[in-house]
């Protein structure tokens, strides 16, 4: 069984615990073991970079060093964690003085960063490491007829400029098709959910979330699939307030892509953390059962 160093990140401990459960269940079923990094620390989120960049890189480097110690590549399910860890490695590898400085600090925890780990986002693990063929073979219950909006968000794609898909990615659609669902096409699939602006500038974030929901629903989405805990929370938990603010009637479930993959692999909904949503996807899922009979 292929093994990876798993960095769940702070949100997956509670707020996005269903993402954690469904990530572990689905990867296991697909022959991959996610081994949680022992004693990992916060990646620094965005807030840390507002205050001190050097400390933020030190946080990332500690996690990377622990993955290196295990000799494993790192997998992060949260787009923010992924971006921070990916670029910590890039900057430290480009700047030997910075690396040396941070390594002197890491000695306090008997760790060393060399910079030779590959950092994957969980969605990238499914598409490029496990592969769509393997997923197709393992599907037991294809999600036939379910119209899903693949929501990329930001930091899974950006700021990486070496990414071939930076302006019009399609790997999320590929995964949804592999599990039998129908990915819908909508213009805002890689626009920002507002991130922490939901706290620091609510009007800005609300208008961003409103535009996203409207664009997805107008294009026929029954469910929105996310690959980031912050996107999930922003898109789902504030729909009622958005409705009041914009005089709309959104009630669209927002689930993690791993929950959809899990259902298609025949894993029980409860084991995928389903049931913790504000807006239940039950009705949308029942329609599949009827369609596939």
């Amino acid at each position, binding site marked *: 069984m292929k093994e990876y160093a798993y960095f769940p990140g*702070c949100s997956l401990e509670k707020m*996005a615990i269903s993402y954690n459960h469904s990530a572990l269940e689905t990867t296991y079923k697909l022959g991959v073991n996610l081994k949680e990094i022992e004693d990992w620390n916060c990646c*620094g989120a965005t807030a840390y970079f*507002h205050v001190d*960049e050097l400390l933020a890189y030190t946080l990332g480097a500690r996690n990377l060093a622990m993955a290196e110690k295990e000799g494993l590549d790192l997998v992060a399910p949260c787009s923010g964690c992924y971006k921070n860890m990916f670029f910590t490695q890039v900057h430290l590898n480009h700047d030997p003085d910075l690396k040396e400085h941070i390594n002197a*600090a890491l000695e306090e925890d008997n760790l060393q960063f060399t910079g030779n780990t590959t950092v994957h986002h969980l969605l990238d693990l499914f598409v490029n490491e496990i592969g769509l063929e393997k997923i197709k073979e393992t599907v037991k219950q294809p999600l036939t007829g379910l119209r899903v909006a693949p929501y990329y968000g*930001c930091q899974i794609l950006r700021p990486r400029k070496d990414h071939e898909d930076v302006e019009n990615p399609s790997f999320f659609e590929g995964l949804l098709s592999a599990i039998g669902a129908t990915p819908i096409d909508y213009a805002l699939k890689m626009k920002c959910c507002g991130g922490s602006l939901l706290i620091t500038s609510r*009007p800005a974030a609300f208008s961003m979330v409103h*535009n996203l929901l409207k664009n997805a629903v107008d294009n026929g989405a029954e469910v929105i699939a996310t690959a980031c805990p912050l996107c999930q929370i922003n898109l789902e*938990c504030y729909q009622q307030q958005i409705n009041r603010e914009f005089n709309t009637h959104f009630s669209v479930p927002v689930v993690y892509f791993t929950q959809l993959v899990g259902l298609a692999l025949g894993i029980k909904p409860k084991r995928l953390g389903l049931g913790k949503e504000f807006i239940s996807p039950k009705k949308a899922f029942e329609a599949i059962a009827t369609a596939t009979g």
Partner: protein
Amino acid sequence: MTDKPAFNQEVANLLYAAEGNPLETCIQCGSCSGTCPAANVMDHTPRRLIAMINAGMKEQVLASNTFWYCASCYHCTVRCPSGIDIAEAMYALKRYTMWKGQYQEGMIGPTFSETFVKTIVRSGRSYEPILAPTYIFSYGVREFIDEAVTATNLMLKGRIPLLPPRIKRLENFKRMISHIIPIGEAL
């Protein structure tokens, strides 16, 4: 007399990710402003802010809310035809005003970030309930109630931790941090 660096040079060289940012190559095309999902709430659009930086309008730039309303989505960065990392320049300006204590009054961002960092430095992990007081009191009554309802719903769904998490090797972690910034007893 030694010349002080021009303001655009200062902003372009604020540490690692932002270092060497070619702000002076901006052609004012407006791709950043057209792409930015938060431009409508900013007092200056990103394009305009870069022009102001290049014009050396330091006071006006530092007093702007533009960079605090940047959500770090990096859409401008990947589209800039001049290769300017605009989102990193926004980060650099946030840090600059934090250091100088010069940010616009009434902004939630700086206090929120500061509390977030303190939480991590003390425990190694983030914990949402500690962060709430940094913003909740600046909300109006309706937003305050909304936020309380959302938090209650999250709690009922088992999505809020009751106890603050912390890492195991916390002593090592704190020593590691004081290597980077000698903050003595502050931890």
